[in-house]
């Protein structure tokens, strides 16, 4: 009897720990560059990447100019991942564009994200605590956060530093797609400040 109670206590402690580690991703409802609205709820059951972006930030350019971000977008969306780039630049601030300019920029750099969401009030950025560009969040199919932080471990804006960097975003997505545990759940993001 004592043993059963101890096991039950251990299981409950485990559940509490799991619940703490598996924080729920905040809900959002944002338009994309065509005005179509996207919510986190509509992607329940899928792995979702939220990639805070500002196309004119040099740390973002580091990933887009050599095509590294687009390659990840193409690779993972082909495996069923939903990839949402989010821009929280306020009107008049760097990275905020009119719809036509968004479309021109996305076409020019060959963006392969599922959608680019415009968060000009910053409501979604603040809910997630997005502080930098790039700053990425990975949401599990059950709506819990699997990862938040930097794309990789090289605090640099030089595309030459992509080679040899540890890519936390790819690691997280590969682990989730393989059904395995995520090794690193949080890192300190680096980059420009979000232009709220």
């Amino acid at each position: 009897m004592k043993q059963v109670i101890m096991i039950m206590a251990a299981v409950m402690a485990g559940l509490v720990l799991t619940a703490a580690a598996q924080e729920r991703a905040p809900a959002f409802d944002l338009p994309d560059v065509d005005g179509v609205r996207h919510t986190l709820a509509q992607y329940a059951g899928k792995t979702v990447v939220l990639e805070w972006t500002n196309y004119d930030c040099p740390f973002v350019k580091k990933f887009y100019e050599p095509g590294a971000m687009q390659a990840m977008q193409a690779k993972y969306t082909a495996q069923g991942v939903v990839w949402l780039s989010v821009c929280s630049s306020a009107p008049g601030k760097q990275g905020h564009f009119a719809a036509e300019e968004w479309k021109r920029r996305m076409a020019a750099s060959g963006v392969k994200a599922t959608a680019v969401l415009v968060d000009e009030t910053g409501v979604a950025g603040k809910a997630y605590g997005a502080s930098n560009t790039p700053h990425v969040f990975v949401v599990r199919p059950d709506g819990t956060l699997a990862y938040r932080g930097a794309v990789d471990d090289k605090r640099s804006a030089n595309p030459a530093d992509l080679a040899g960097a540890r890519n936390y975003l790819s690691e997280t997505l590969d682990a989730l797609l393989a059904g395995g545990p995520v090794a690193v759940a949080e890192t300190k993001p680096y980059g420009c400040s979000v232009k709220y």
Partner: protein
Amino acid sequence: MKTRRGVILFTAGVVLLSAALARAAGPRDLSRVELFAAYEIVRPGDLLPLAVRITVADGWHTYAENPGDSGMPPSIRISGPVPLETAPWQFPPPQAFKDAAGTSYGYEKSVVLLGGVRIPGTVAPGEEIELKADLDWMICRDMCVFLQDSLTLRVRTGEAASAARPQWNALLKESGWMPQAETRQGTPVPGKESK
């Protein structure tokens, strides 16, 4: 004939326009870097002190070794005709900047970073050595600009290490690395004063 003149006028217009744009918004107007060596002549086997000065336009700042919540530290890679041992770069105390990401640390106006390179003992005296510095640095205000530049500098090897050039001492004083009020008998060595 008319077409050709049109092309020439158009080309001239584009060139003038490009020049005007470059003058208006060239990143080189926002920030530049310079490389300095302490000695003109260095004895093989000795450490040659080096300095990099980063100058930024008003309103902008560059970053410290630990930049905090945004930005990036400057990267300086020294190379030469032979593999060289380099000293870690030293950064002066930075100031704090607040932005949406939190607090970052860096420098306004200009900063001098100190480093060094050991000239191998295998190099013969009387040789000229070209040192190259490849720099990556970031400047920000309400937006950020990533800059890259390569600088070169020549030193000669000699039997005895020269004393520091006057310009070197001036640079250290101006940047706060050496006390301004130096006694005639010599500079106090930091960290060695008696308690």
